[in-house]
């Protein structure tokens, strides 16, 4: 296993190709030296400004960090473009035919981006420690910033790779591509620059709005839940890694079970981490994650091919280990596998809800903690309306689109209705529309769409928070049974051709 991993990294064809191309690309080296020179020049100018004499160290450190951030952005942008070129050249299928596993391809890409980043990092970090000699800086902070960069960069690299791999796919529609490109343009430079500047803010303000939350993840001061933090970080990286693999996977050889498993385990670890830190005050953060993860997972992967792809089935047959077989069963690609994963999410939601009720929550915490229980019901609600129509049973894309459109349109419609019911005109005594209109609007919003349920659940104080949990528990179970029924009907339709 260790040998295979080492071989996968050091004798990786993709890594060899990308590094060979990188070393032959002189523009890149010129750009790096230019950036470094620019950073140094700006630092020197800033240091010579009146009033900055006492803060030479932090200023130099800040600008070196910014240079590093810019360099990281250039590396990521080049990785992004290189990956897009692979799609336009249609080379991924040549790697596939060469028997290269999807993991090896993505690992090669990620490691090549990291190697390029580390090249710049090791060129710049010595200057950062030189900045320490200028005074005004804490040595531990420099080390922590450097560690933060090293830890955050792989996440951003994986995220950008994931976007690049999805944007170029033919199955992503044009508006989705435009949205993803806009998100990439906004997000990646923003994060890269903030990553660099965050350390500067930390140095001056003890943690900025962005820097504080990101760097607290890697803070070595709080060691109580360090194992969970590391586990969350590793799982999140793996999740992005397998999302990348799944993006380039041919239909017969998907990596859907890894994606589902990691979505579940990241959610569970996040709940555990929140539970360890500040429960129940932080519980909504865990609950949002659970609710959103199960809704998105279900909406995208439940209306899907029913049986796992052939290569995945063969891989499962060859497995001797019971745990691996169970893993294959619980997170199998296809609708039935997604249903099992949603069931696990439901169980996790029950545990989270019970944990919240045990800790004596406020009525609002109690009401919001039961939300994830209802996710299967929302997933069931829109496809069931289409089940009488034969065409919908075989068209998974239609089911998926209808689910998402239903959530959005019905959700917005109910919110408008609820807003009207909440308006002063309606609530005026003697208007004829007293409390029960508001109650019905709230009830519809809570039951019919996750969008309206989320918003109305936050603002509405019905006074039945304790019974809301039971209602959501039951509706979630009904949703799971309903989803099983839908999957069986779709299977029957698929077999009848």
């Amino acid at each position, binding site marked *: 296993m260790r040998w295979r991993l080492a071989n996968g990294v050091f*004798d*990786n*064809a*993709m890594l*060899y*190709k990308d590094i*060979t*191309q990188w070393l*032959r*690309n002189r523009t890149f080296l010129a750009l790096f030296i230019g950036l470094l020179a620019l950073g140094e020049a700006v630092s020197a100018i800033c240091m010579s400004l009146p009033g900055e004499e006492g803060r030479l160290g932090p200023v130099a450190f800040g600008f070196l960090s910014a240079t590093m951030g810019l360099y990281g952005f250039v590396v990521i942008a080049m990785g992004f473009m290189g990956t897009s070129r692979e799609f336009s*050249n*249609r*080379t991924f*299928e*040549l*790697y*596939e*035919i*060469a*028997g*290269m596993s999807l993991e090896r391809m993505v690992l090669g890409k990620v490691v090549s981006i990291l190697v390029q980043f580390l090249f710049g990092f090791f060129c710049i970090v010595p200057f950062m420690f030189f900045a320490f000699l200028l005074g005004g800086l804490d040595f531990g902070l420099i080390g922590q910033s450097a560690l933060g960069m090293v830890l955050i960069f792989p996440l951003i690299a994986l995220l950008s790779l994931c976007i690049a791999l999805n944007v170029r796919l033919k199955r992503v529609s044009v508006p989705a591509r435009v949205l993803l490109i806009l998100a990439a343009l906004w997000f990646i430079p923003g994060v890269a620059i903030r990553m660099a500047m965050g350390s500067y803010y930390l140095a001056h303000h003890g943690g900025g709005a962005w820097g504080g939350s990101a760097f607290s993840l890697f803070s070595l001061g709080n060691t109580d839940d360090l194992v969970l933090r590391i586990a969350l970080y590793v799982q999140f990286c793996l999740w992005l890694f397998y999302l990348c693999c799944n993006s380039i996977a*041919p*239909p*017969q*050889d998907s990596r859907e079970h890894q994606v589902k498993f990691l979505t579940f385990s990241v959610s569970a670890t996040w709940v555990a981490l929140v539970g360890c830190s500040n429960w129940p005050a932080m519980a909504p953060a865990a609950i949002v994650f659970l609710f959103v993860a199960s809704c998105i997972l279900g909406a995208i992967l439940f209306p899907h091919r029913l049986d796992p*792809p*052939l*290569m995945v089935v*063969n891989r499962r047959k060859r497995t001797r280990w019971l745990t691996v077989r169970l893993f294959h069963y619980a997170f199998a690609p296809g609708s039935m596998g997604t249903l099992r994963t949603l069931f696990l999410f439901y169980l996790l939601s029950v545990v989270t809800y019970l944990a919240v009720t045990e800790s004596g929550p406020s009525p609002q915490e109690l009401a919001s903690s039961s939300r994830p229980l209802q996710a299967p019901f929302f997933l069931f609600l829109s496809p069931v309306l289409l089940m009488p129509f034969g065409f919908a049973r075989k068209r998974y894309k239609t089911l998926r689109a209808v689910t998402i459109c239903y959530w959005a349109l019905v959700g917005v419609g109910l919110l408008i209705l609820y807003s009207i019911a909440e308006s002063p005109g309606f609530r005026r005594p003697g208007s004829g529309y007293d409390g029960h209109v508001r109650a019905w609007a709230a009830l519809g919003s809570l039951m019919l769409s996750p969008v309206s349920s989320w918003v109305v659940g936050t603002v509405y104080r019905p006074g039945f928070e304790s019974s809301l949990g039971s209602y959501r528990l039951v509706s979630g179970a009904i949703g799971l049974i309903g989803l099983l029924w839908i999957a069986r009907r779709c299977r029957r339709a698929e077999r009848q051709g």
Partner: protein
Amino acid sequence: MLKVDNLTKIFGKTRAVDDLSFELEEGDVCGFIGPNGAGKTTTMRIIATLEEPTDGQVRVGGESIHEEPYRIRRRIGFMPDHYGTYPDMTCRDYLEFYARAYEIEPKARARRIDGIMDFTGLGDIADKKVEELSKGMRQRLNLSRALINDPKLMVMDEPAAGLDPRARVELRYLIRNLAEQGKTVFVSSHILTELSEICDHMLIIDQGRKISFGSVEEIQRGLREGFEIRVRLVDPSQVEGLVRFLVQRPGIQDVRPGENGVLLFSLRDEAERIPALLREAVNEGFSVMEFRPETPTMEDVFMRITGQTNGGNNGNGA
């Protein structure tokens, strides 16, 4: 070596490949012909394990693409209709990259790459950048890439497309050499005359369905009902007399006098009748300079076969 049974691939409402079956032995060179959109590329991609069939089975060396796709990939050399090359890489780097991808042992890599470059004639330009190569050279590099794992079956999708006549001749020579090495070659092309020269077998498909499969001679023979005969007379003034002579003979149809003493007619009879007919014409006093049955070209075969299917489908009998 390659066995395709009832292969079907459906994209939405389109049957790209429809119940296709054929079999190739080791060392066979099979030409794969069909009009655009006939399902050639889809069939080849399924054989190369890049697509999943809707139904049917494909076996390479006795192993199923459903059960052993990874092992089959090691036995196949696939040349798609695009190059997939990179800037900033030399020919040697490019092949080194694919040798790594195929997990060829580091010690054996250089030897294998040198051997393939010699075979494909790239040895002299090993350190030239890929972007500087001509189209013909890139196609050779593409072929080298497909050969890097020493495949038993070569699947080549339109390898001659866009090549100049010289490069096409060289490619033909390379394909014949591959067959002599015992490799099975399954090649599609639009340049039909070339295929008839290098292939042992032909598979013709249209709208995903098999129209004809067999040796080149079998397909050409199966197409014609009798023979198309071309006659050339020394004295063009005898043409009218020869027309009268021929139309009185049984089995002769469609007599068409041409210019400069040339005449064409169809003979719906056995081959033995041809020399007898020539003897009769000479005995009648016609000064015959040329008398030969015309062999239909692959273009004729292709046009007639696909024309028949289109006509049959359209119902216009075209």
